[in-house]
């Protein structure tokens, strides 16, 4: 009896509970002052801007994929801006009128939720509110390299691997003029990506940063090189001329064909398999 109670009796003995609460209280007492907010840091904001925002936005160099952010701090309400930096997807979903307006204005390419914390948002605002300027992308070395469309296509399809080991585009994206099977369907079709991303400046910036939540996890450690960006850009500029293909069913037909071929093959290989003993025995009788 005694043993049993010990084994599955009350886990939260009162005494244990008291000690537990005491330790918790003490911990909070020490922790809280350390957690009070430090002053916003312009440097931190700048680093973050270059990492997460510069792919789509410039400050003072004109619109890329997203708007030029010069003066944005004065233009927008501070609380709205903090929230927008943190959860843009949520605000669009809620139907925030300003959010919807911006979305429409910029080719319906939504600003991704990049997981920015409130403290980071404050840092960003501190940076953008100063007289910061981003470097002029038109003098960016990438734009100077003239890309090779054939190489770009090969990079897209994966017949030439990315130098840093990222997966080929075709794994997740389809594009017009790329054989019967097109490409993956996880990401959007990239045939008209050149138009959608506002031409060279926007598309090049996006390719360099790949600031999309799904792609970040994959390409963070394996960024595209400047040359690769240039080749891909050249290829996308080319596909932009092609009319996008309507939803294509080739995949289904090819799948069906392969399935039937495999079924026939299996029947041939396992032709001599055991297909019942008793029934044939009776069959011979009737």
């Amino acid at each position, binding site marked *: 009896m005694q043993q049993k109670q010990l084994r599955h009796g009350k886990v939260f003995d009162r005494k244990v509970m008291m000690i537990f609460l005491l330790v918790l209280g003490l911990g909070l007492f020490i922790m809280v002052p350390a957690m009070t907010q430090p002053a916003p840091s312009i440097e931190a904001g700048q680093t973050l801007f270059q990492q997460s925002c510069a792919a789509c936005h410039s400050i003072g160099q004109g619109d890329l994929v997203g708007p030029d952010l010069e003066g944005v701090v004065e233009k927008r309400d501070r609380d709205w801006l903090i929230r927008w930096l943190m959860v843009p997807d949520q605000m669009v979903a809620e139907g925030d009128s300003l959010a919807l307006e911006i979305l429409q204005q910029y080719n319906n390419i939504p600003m991704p939720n990049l997981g920015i914390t409130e403290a980071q948002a404050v840092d960003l605002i501190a940076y953008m509110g100063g007289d910061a300027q981003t470097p002029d992308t038109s003098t960016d070395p990438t734009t100077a390299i003239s890309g090779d469309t054939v190489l770009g296509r090969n990079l897209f399809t994966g017949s030439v691997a990315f130098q840093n080991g990222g997966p080929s585009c075709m794994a997740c994206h389809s594009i017009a003029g790329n054989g019967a099977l097109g490409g993956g369907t996880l990401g959007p079709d990239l045939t008209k990506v050149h138009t959608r991303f506002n031409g060279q400046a926007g598309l090049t910036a996006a390719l360099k940063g790949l600031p999309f939540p799904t792609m970040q996890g994959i390409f963070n450690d394996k960024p595209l090189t400047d040359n690769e960006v240039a080749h891909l850009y050249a290829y996308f500029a080319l596909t932009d001329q092609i009319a996008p293909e309507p939803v294509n069913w080739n995949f289904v037909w090819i799948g069906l064909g392969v399935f039937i071929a495999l079924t026939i093959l299996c029947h041939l290989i396992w032709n001599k398999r*055991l297909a019942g003993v008793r029934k044939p025995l009776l069959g011979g009788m009737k």
Partner: protein
Amino acid sequence: MDVRAQVSMMFHLDKCIGCHTCSVACKNIWTDREGTEYMWWNNVETKPGTGYPTKWEDQEKYKGGWKLKSEDSPEDKDKIKLRASDKGRGFANLFHQPNLPTIDDYYEPWTYKYNDLFDSPAGDDQPTARPISLITGEPMDIEAGPNWDDDMGGSTVYAANDPDFADLTMAEKKAFFEMERMVFFYLPRICNHCLNPGCVAACPSGALHKRGEDGIVLVNQNVCRGWRHCVAACPYKKVYYNWKSGKSEKCILCFPRLETGQAPACFHSCVGRIRYLGVVLYDADLIESTASAPEDELVDLQREMILDPSDPDVIAQAKRGGMHDSVIDAAQKSPVYRFVKEWELALPLHPEFRTLPMLFYIPPLLPVLGRLENGTYTIDEKDYFGSLDKARVPMKYMARLFTAGNEEHVRKTYEKLLAVRMHKRVEQVGDLNQDDVDGMLKATGLTVEMCEEIYRLTSLPTFEERFVIPPMHREYATELMGDPYTFKAETGVGFANKPKRGL
């Protein structure tokens, strides 16, 4: 010499009355779950007949067991390979084993809609209970069962297609089916817990093993991945696939019963008391050479593997291998050892499958054709064993079953059985010539004492003489790990879900 212990079995076919009590005892304990309805770990077949699954002995179809490599390429001498899946083909067929029996070859299990008998509205007709498939739950027509050809039912289809008629000529086969001569006997079958089990060898997951201390062959349900290569590889078709759990299952020789000193359920319940169980010691170093021997040597060599448990060398070697005294002691009292090795009466079933089965059978001494003359049944034979040639089931047939076609071998066994029978007849009825019987004993090498012992162990054995179960030391091992009484009211180590019972 590598001495190991095997809990071995012997069935005396002369005593089997075909009551199926054994099968039902087994089913009630082990295979009454969903997915196992069609399985009969123990089944009783009528011979001649096609058995369960239909024609299981026909390895041209089922591709079970081992074959000599030299059958394919003569330069490979003395090596064996699995008929169904050697390494290469096993891998190629991993996702589709092509040699599996279909459910129809076993039978589609069914129950009846008994409620219709009670719930039907009043009407002009008697309500009937329709058969319902236990697999689909739909009404079905019963076309076969696990003992469909019992007592030679449907013999023109089933008995006529018995694979063991292979060695008989057309005329001999026809003669067998003459109404006046027709005869049958029963063949109860369980897993043979083979020394060279095809099932273990074929498993791609390594889920089957042969227990070290008693040789019981088991499927580990945690490791089995349902590839079903064991089902194809067992020539006796004694591994079954559970379609519900997706794993294979087989006879476990009631090891939980053995471990607590009880005979397996089918042995315990056997009405004809045909079943014997005991330990034999064997030399594991000889497994490979025996399994790959020429066909007509298989029976002898397998017998040679079994060692004399009273031989000091054997005992010393067994102890060196860590065998407990109590096991050696049980081996010395083993009835199976006496029937198989000492008296050379019991034979393995289909040794040509090369799995070295450890379940042995004494072939049935069926009545021979004779006449009633002046109130005595005579068989008109001057020659001692001449009646064997008149046996209603030809020796060739028995040889196919028990000695890989070697007629000499079964004949020797039968001569001994006959000699014992005649010895007792002279003693108790006294209507035969004593000299004739002495001649028979001499020819078979039996002594009067041996005859008496064979008679005693065949006809009058006690429970303890039939089942000599070695103490299994697992129960002690369990007790070492904890006081069983502390855990008695609990479910293992602590509770995942607290049971709704007790305190």
